[in-house]
């Protein structure tokens, strides 16, 4: 069966700005081919999944306040099914990183991400999580969360307006609708690849030894243990 471009009720397909990306995902799926029974089941799952996305609040700074506005009465994200902000990673579908991620926070973020159940998605909300934002030159800020976890949707802004957040969340809905739930594209494999590449760069023992040697040669005092 043929998979069509995803439709969501809230905005028309033409009004999104980057339809090529979604179209390419659809083309990829069609090229692989889909069984008619599994395809129909897939559509049902995607419909349900895309309309009941539960966020995991990971608010570190300003963007979290705008996210609270998103949950409050005027913007009311419950209309689109992003309803119940969960405080446990185990109950949520996507993690929305709101605010700067620092070196001290990074291990905690990765750990929380690993605790989430599949299928899981990541939204980088705000300039800091996209690229480091105004703190890019800082000595202890992660230059974009995609350095440590794979990101599905980027939302620029400092902080993004609630409307922009909705746009980003709808993009996530579309992305879910253009993916396979049963078989086909293997999310776990793709994710494993991402982390393997990171680990290779990070934990290269030779590199690490070099760091330690540099630390000892540097004039900066080394903390006694």
């Amino acid at each position, binding site marked *: 069966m043929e998979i069509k471009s995803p439709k969501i009720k809230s905005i028309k397909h033409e009004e999104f700005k980057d339809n090529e990306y979604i179209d390419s995902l659809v083309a990829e799926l069609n090229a692989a081919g889909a069984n008619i029974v599994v395809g129909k089941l897939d559509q049902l799952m995607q419909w349900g999944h895309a309309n009941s996305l539960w966020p995991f609040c990971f608010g570190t700074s300003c963007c979290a306040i705008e996210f609270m506005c998103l949950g409050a009465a005027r913007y009311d994200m419950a209309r689109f099914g992003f309803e119940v902000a969960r405080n446990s990673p185990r109950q949520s579908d996507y993690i929305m990183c709101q605010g700067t991620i620092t070196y001290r926070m990074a291990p905690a973020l990765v750990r929380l991400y690993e605790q989430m159940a599949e299928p899981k998605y990541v939204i980088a909300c705000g300039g800091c999580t996209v690229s480091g934002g105004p703190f890019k030159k800082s000595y*202890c800020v992660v230059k974009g969360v995609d350095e440590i976890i794979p990101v599905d949707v980027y939302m620029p802004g400092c902080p993004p307006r609630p409307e922009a957040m909705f746009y980003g969340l709808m993009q996530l809905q579309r992305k879910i609708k253009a993916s396979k739930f049963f078989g086909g594209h293997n999310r776990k494999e793709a994710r494993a690849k991402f982390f393997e590449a990171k680990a290779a760069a990070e934990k290269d023992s030779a590199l690490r030894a070099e760091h330690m040697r*540099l630390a000892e040669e540097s004039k900066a005092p080394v903390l006694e243990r």
Partner: protein
Amino acid sequence: MANIQEKISALCPSATFDESGELLLVNVPDENWHALAKALKEELHFDLLNAVAGVDWKESLGCMYYLTNTETQEMIHVKVATTDRETPRLHTVSDVWAVANYQEREVYDFFGIEFINHPDMRRFFLRNDWVGYPLRKDYDANPELNPLRLEAEENEDDTYALVEDEKGEIKRVDKKVFGPDEYVINVGPQHPSTHGVMRYRAAIDGEVVKKVDVVSGYIHRGIEKLCEDLTYPSMLLYTERMDYMGAHMNRHATCLCIEKALGIEVPHRAEVIRMMMDELMRLSSHLLSYGCLTMDQGATTAFFYGFRERELIYDIFDKTCGARMSMSYDTIGGVVRDVDPEFVNDVRKACDAIEKAIPEYHKLFSGNVIALGRMKDVGTLSLEDAKNYAITGPSGRASGFHCDVRKTQPYSLYNEVEFDEVVYENGDSFDRYMVRMKEMEQSIKILRQCCDMMDKEGHQGEFCAKVPKIIKLPAGHWYQQVEASRGAFGVYLESDGEGKPFQHPYRIHFQSPCFNLVGVVDLTCKDNLIADLITITASLDYVIPDIDR
């Protein structure tokens, strides 16, 4: 001032004075500093330590201590420095002013100055395996020294103290934060009720909290260091990203400090606009604090009411400043652009709406039996402790501390408007909550007077003074305080008078009110239930990026 100078030189003959700056500067050698600090507090009643700013003067390293006498509102500042750059050591004053405990840990983290007799010398913001001290001028910023590490910190329970014996010999004593038989619960860093990424480690006995260890720095972004590489106008953007619920006030404080250094007179109309923005921000902040406090105690409905009125304020910001948050509106010499033609009408409407809504808030939450049970007589902070820990703002005033900077050291046009300083006496969670509710009424009162002032000034007019295109400050240092949403926000600015063609601040230190608030978490939570930790911290109402900066 001359009087104080005489008294200090009688107490400490080796002190030298400098009256050329805005405040009296006392230079004290380190060996006399602790004795003088004690005398300053007990005999001259300088009972409030406003700020401790560590500075690297290249030939020496040291601290600036800003002190206030809370009765007469006199301020002095003391400079203590050491020329030893290899193992810089100073004497602690954390036993004189309790607030110095965390302040000195911050200085240790940034400059590597160790404090003799300080009980707990751990880093405050950075990981304990961090190499180097970032705010030193000779800091090696090579990212290979401090790479992004994805493994958790080790040995976070280890700490040490430098103990001086009677002979003057200094010994290092290794310590542990928690004993082997203490049962420690971890709260945070990602916890829905810590209002951000704060982490507590609480030692509990059954359900009763015995000790709370604060682990901060999960959102430390190095703003003070970043500012040192920017010009004065461009550095302003960071001020709003610290306490985003006091964005206008923080920016106002920094602008006031630079204007003071440059001697710029701000047009009257611009000051009125700034003041209105400050008060709108305060309303917005207190509404958020109401929403969060109620939600933390399970009253989710009340949260929606608080946010309903906040949207009105957001609309005003949106129309005039062009953004809902991170407004970037105040600038050196005034404000960036003129107000929206509808501004004054909108403010009046918002005032009416919020005034009408306040009784509704009280009806929803204030009289609730559960709320009263959880907040009354819980987390009491006495007046002495409030002064000792320099707790200002609504939390300080709940303990009966008259600390409103708008009253004690009026800035902007606060002496032209009429309003009352809201002061309660018990200092428990409920009083802290009530102070905020009452302050909203006062903010509305100020806003209405400002609207009348704006009517006189006209809806269009001067909004910024003439400011040189390239801003250069003479050599010197300045300190400016304003009343932000959560307490006295101070800016310490030092300029070396050099730099071509653009000048960067030599050192800028932001004394955030929330930094002090987190210092009393241990004190207020002790002997309360672990569930009350959430209520107490919610009623203290701090913003984490303001603590970590």
